[in-house]
């Protein structure tokens, strides 16, 4: 294999893998405070790109302002998800109604974006304008964003009271409520955080994926794979799973071509789930019964 191919696999594979990983972390962050798999995770990633492009290129706002507004809007949509699609179905989690409610909201977000934004991919602004070839910022920005989010979540969970409260709610929300933790407020904060992480994924990956409404469904799909591979609620597993998925997908693009690459990805995904149904890294905690 030529060097150009290897570098392309590494650059694009790791960049796309980092985006998938961040969407996986978005799924996990929502799940950890509510026990709900929210299918708006991928749409938040899509909105990160679309809103970033809208604020910076269409409205002409400075990049920093556009970035901050993008994260704020995505965090707000995260909160709206909690209020509209999650809270009403929390009492009947065993019926899995959240699948319908979050999927419906996800489709609404996608259709509204298609109508109000564009149905064709739109350009995304250069963020720093640094690098070219395989060192172009479009490849390393998602990786940097993924590393920052990982460090931030580690710091949040290990060094802050709020982070520990998140963990407590994630482990046993009934016990957390008994201890006096504001479970509902923490859940809202968790969805806002998830929204911001999803938005960051889309913003950092905007130059690579463009500002395109259809990215939502794409990210919903591929962002779920690292969650399943890494274990539900396990952020470290999601990040490793996401990066592995990106690399494998890009390598498959080289070896077998675009259409068959998707097939190859899902064959491996199914095999992994057959061998390790809890994901390669297992769930975050074992529950004593």
């Amino acid at each position, binding site marked *: 294999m*030529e060097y*150009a*191919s290897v570098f*392309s696999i590494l650059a*694009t594979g790791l960049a*796309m893998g980092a985006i998938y990983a961040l969407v996986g972390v978005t799924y996990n962050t929502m799940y950890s405070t509510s026990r709900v798999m929210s299918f708006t995770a991928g749409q938040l990633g899509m909105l990160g790109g679309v809103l970033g492009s809208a604020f910076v290129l269409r409205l002409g706002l400075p990049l920093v302002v556009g970035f901050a507004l993008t994260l704020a809007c995505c965090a707000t949509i995260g909160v709206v998800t909690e209020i509209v699609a999650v809270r009403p179905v929390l009492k009947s989690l065993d019926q899995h109604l959240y699948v319908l409610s979050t999927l419906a909201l996800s489709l609404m977000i996608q*259709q509204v974006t*298609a*109508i109000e934004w564009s*149905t*064709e*991919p*739109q*350009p995304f602004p250069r963020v720093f304008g640094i690098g070219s*070839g395989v060192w172009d910022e479009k490849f390393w920005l998602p990786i940097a964003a993924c590393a920052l989010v990982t460090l931030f979540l580690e710091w949040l969970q290990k060094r802050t009271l709020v982070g520990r409260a998140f963990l407590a709610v994630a482990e046993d929300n009934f016990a957390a409520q008994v201890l006096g933790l504001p479970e509902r407020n923490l859940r809202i904060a968790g969805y806002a955080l998830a929204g911001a992480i999803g938005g960051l994924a889309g913003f950092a990956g905007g130059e*690579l*994926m*463009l500002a*395109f409404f*259809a*990215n939502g469904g*794409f990210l919903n799909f591929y962002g779920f794979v690292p969650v399943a591979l890494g274990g539900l609620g396990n952020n470290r597993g999601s990040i490793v799973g996401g990066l592995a998925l990106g690399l494998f997908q*890009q390598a498959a*693009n*080289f070896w077998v*071509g*675009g*259409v068959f*690459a*998707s097939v190859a990805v899902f064959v491996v995904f199914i095999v992994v789930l057959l061998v390790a149904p809890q994901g390669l890294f297992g769930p975050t905690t074992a529950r004593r019964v």
Partner: protein
Amino acid sequence: MTISRRAFNIGAVNVLGLASQTIVWPALAQSEQIRIGWLGALTGPNSAPSDGFNRGLRYGVDAVNAAGGANGRRIELITRDTQGDPTKAVNATQEMISALKVHAIFGPANSGESLATTPLMARAKMPNLHPCVVNSLIDPTKYPNAFRMGPSNRQWDDAVRNYCLKILKVKKVAVIGDTTGYGVTAVGDSVAAFKTDGADVVYSAQIDATQPDMTPDVLRMKSAGAEAIVAWSTSTGMAARLFNARAASGWDVPFVGHPSLGSGEVGRLIEKAANWEKVYAINYKSCSFDAEGKLPERTQAFLDKAGSKLDLKGTLLWWVLCGVDAVDLFAKAVIESGGVSSEGVIKFLNAQSKYPGLFGDYSWSPTQHNGYPTDEVVMGMANSSRNGALKLAPGYA
């Protein structure tokens, strides 16, 4: 003879009833609006062509209505967005036939959808004009109601192949398309025709249009020794990514293919203007600037007349002109046949020989429903778009 009040009332009701059947209803029918159904993928990843057709159809309807309608009857354009989804197109077709009772349908504008809707329209004997290119969509025996306004894939294929082999004089080609029904069919037809003409097809593949990086495919084509890349896709995102990947790999191989390669959307997505050089998109003589930068007389006269009423930004002129022509053809069919019956409209269309449209001179007969003249199909320089028209590609006299 005495007539009782009861007998008088019964007689009067019968007379009025008869009169309403023989006089009033035909009068109402003749003043009824002409309902044209329009099935377009107005949203979704392959919506660029339908957006162009939509502009032309709306302009055409407004123009006919402003001139007093067809035989005094106004045209109503009933639009359904199929989103490029054959299932949605089928549902919309059923609705148009059964519930909305349209008199004729334009579209779908996407071959994958048309493959699903054409048999339905044939069963309902619904006059159908469409611009879809898949060859099998036209069969006057199976689908006597379906008429093609644009070129067929074979005609596109001929133009692209002739340009590659006779003007660019390349021997080795790569043929790629997207994963839609259209992309798969077009690549298959194109590969077969190149091989028949003795060319070496060194690479052929379907590419997922949402794939963020096209480098793997570009490098594979480069390794295979392709001297020209023939691309069949309506996805502007895919086209722009291919051009960017070509530039990043330091390759200047020409791209030749689908009209979408010259869409204004592509220009917004390429990383550098130079990435769009040496890209030749299918175009038409009626929409081509000559060496002096002039459009054909008929086209220019129309654009002068339309002025600012017609938005040509970010679309292709032929999509718009085809939409305008479709409305004009339906209106003329109503005028000539004296009504909206499907038999009358179909008979009118079957009798056209070199009907002077804006997009081209259409000819149909009971045995030939491919209406667009092959010699009108040419290649244009993709990056030369102005008002949706392109400069003729290098090599044409």
